[in-house]
């Protein structure tokens, strides 16, 4: 059964059709890639799924139910986590607090209990603290827990953003160009991390990526977007050989880029 399904989903900005007639079906537990040239509308697809944009056409189903119009907060609460292309950490908070914020939804104590430091709040806080530290530990970030999030080097910020998204216990995780700005060895490390996250946390992952090595190396299925429309869908091997995809990437040395 598919955990996420886009049915002829699309959005126009004025006259521009940023995404149109997009069908996408993510089997539960898969690691799915979304690729395409710059400006193909990949991030827009993420914004449609997470409710930041309202689709002007079509439907989006998560676990069989339409999530169109629910808004980013409720969609996230329903179990869709994400990271951003331009990392969006809470720069004024520590690494630990960045993760603890994600537990806010699971807080039992109310505002007054929090202010009065009532036992229920202390229990909440202790639990959030323990879970956050454990999560940071699995991501190798525990030694930096007390540092300001801004002080982390780039690669660790990406890791922290993924850890934070996982703290909401999502069933579906959307990663927007996690390897952007990384060198080949860092990208390779990230590839293992993503695979490991899927195994460890049992999430379905939808991935936007430019690093072909990463996409081809870990995704089980791939959809290729160009000009907001799907031009190909299939396994990495099929995509590699697809003449339409090669056509879309024309202008650069296509074959090496796709097969690299």
């Amino acid at each position, binding site marked *: 059964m598919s955990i996420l399904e886009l049915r002829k989903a699309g959005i126009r900005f004025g006259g521009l059709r940023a995404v149109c007639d997009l069908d996408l079906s993510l089997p539960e537990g898969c690691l799915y890639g979304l690729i395409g040239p710059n400006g193909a509308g990949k991030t827009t697809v993420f914004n449609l799924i997470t409710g930041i944009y309202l689709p002007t056409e079509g439907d989006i189903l998560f676990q069989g139910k339409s999530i169109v119009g629910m808004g980013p907060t409720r969609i*996230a609460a329903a179990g869709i986590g994400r990271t951003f292309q331009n990392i969006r950490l809470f720069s004024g908070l520590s690494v630990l607090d960045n993760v603890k914020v994600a537990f806010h939804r699971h807080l039992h104590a109310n505002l007054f209990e929090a202010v009065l430091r009532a036992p229920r709040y202390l229990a909440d806080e202790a639990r959030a*603290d323990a879970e956050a530290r454990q999560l940071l530990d699995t991501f190798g970030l525990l030694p*930096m827990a007390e*540092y300001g999030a801004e002080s982390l080097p780039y690669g660790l910020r990406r890791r922290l953003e993924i850890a934070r998204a996982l703290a*909401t216990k999502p069933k579906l995780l959307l990663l927007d160009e996690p390897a952007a700005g990384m060198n080949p060895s860092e990208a390779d490390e990230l590839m293992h991390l993503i695979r490991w996250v899927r195994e460890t946390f049992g999430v379905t992952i939808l991935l936007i990526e430019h690093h072909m090595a990463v996409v081809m190396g870990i995704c089980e299925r791939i959809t290729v977007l160009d000009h907001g429309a799907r031009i190909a869908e299939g396994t990495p091997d099929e995509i590699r050989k697809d003449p339409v995809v090669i056509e879309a990437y024309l202008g650069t040395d296509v074959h090496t880029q796709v097969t690299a």
Partner: protein
Amino acid sequence: MADASPPRPAPISLRGTLLGYLAFAVAIAAVWGIDVYAVPWTDPYLTDIVIRIGMALLAVMGLALVLGFTGQFSLGHAGFMAVGAYAAAMMSLHSGLHPMIGVLVGGFAAAVAGVVVGLPSLRLTGDYLAVVTLGFNGIIIVLIQNAPVLGGAAGLTGLPVATTFGWTFTWVLLGGLFIRNLLTSAHGRVFEAVRDNEIALRSLGVDTTRAKVVAFVVGAFWAGIAGGLLAHYRASIFPSQFQFDRSIEILAMVVLGGTGSLSGPLLSAAVLTALPEVLRPVAEYRMVIYSLLLIGMMILRPKGLLGGKEISDFFRRRPAAKKEAA
């Protein structure tokens, strides 16, 4: 780099909490001790300045929460003080209850006003909030001026005088504890996350509008308390006390003290309230000085004097270098 937030003390323990309560009780006792044994022998002029500092502290701590920590630009803080002041005054004039009950009612009235103003405008981006709160401040004044029952432009007189040193600083301690504990709780984290990146916060399933409204309402409540105390300080209140320039004054105190700091704004509130008293010739040019300070501070040191730190951070033994990641 190093100017990221200071590391927060790790989870609040039960022992720390109990010690905190104990310290609070001692502080309250000290305030009343001073009220009974020191104030009667103190120069009334000095007492006057100290009480006015106390009221400024209450007004400023709310805005420090809303502006400094949550990043919401409210320009109508004096409007909430007005609501609190008039609600408290009406209680005292017509109910016969203790004036401090009136002050509490004033706080709640201001909180209700905070919901009414905050709900529609906090859904929008910051600029709109600035204008709506400014407008709210204006509307409140117009409404009071046109309400005979509230004394119109001439204001209300004959209110019971009850704002003593003891009561003022009891409220200051309560407010300080409330806001400090709120900021160091899970809610405080969310407020700062709202300020830093609203979109990311929503992607974590946190209702950001709700968080903003909560901060706004808490800020309004303490402004209302400040207003209620003001109403019972000089036995009279009038609408022009709560005009826009008063809001700006509170804003200046927060911004100069440092956005993202609680003790910074409190310190600057105390200094800026006392300064015109100490330097008499300054009084006339007070607003000119505030505005020059605001402009200069934004250009030279945009995060305010304390730059997002608390006074206690400067005395901490672990220096900021600890935060530098490998």
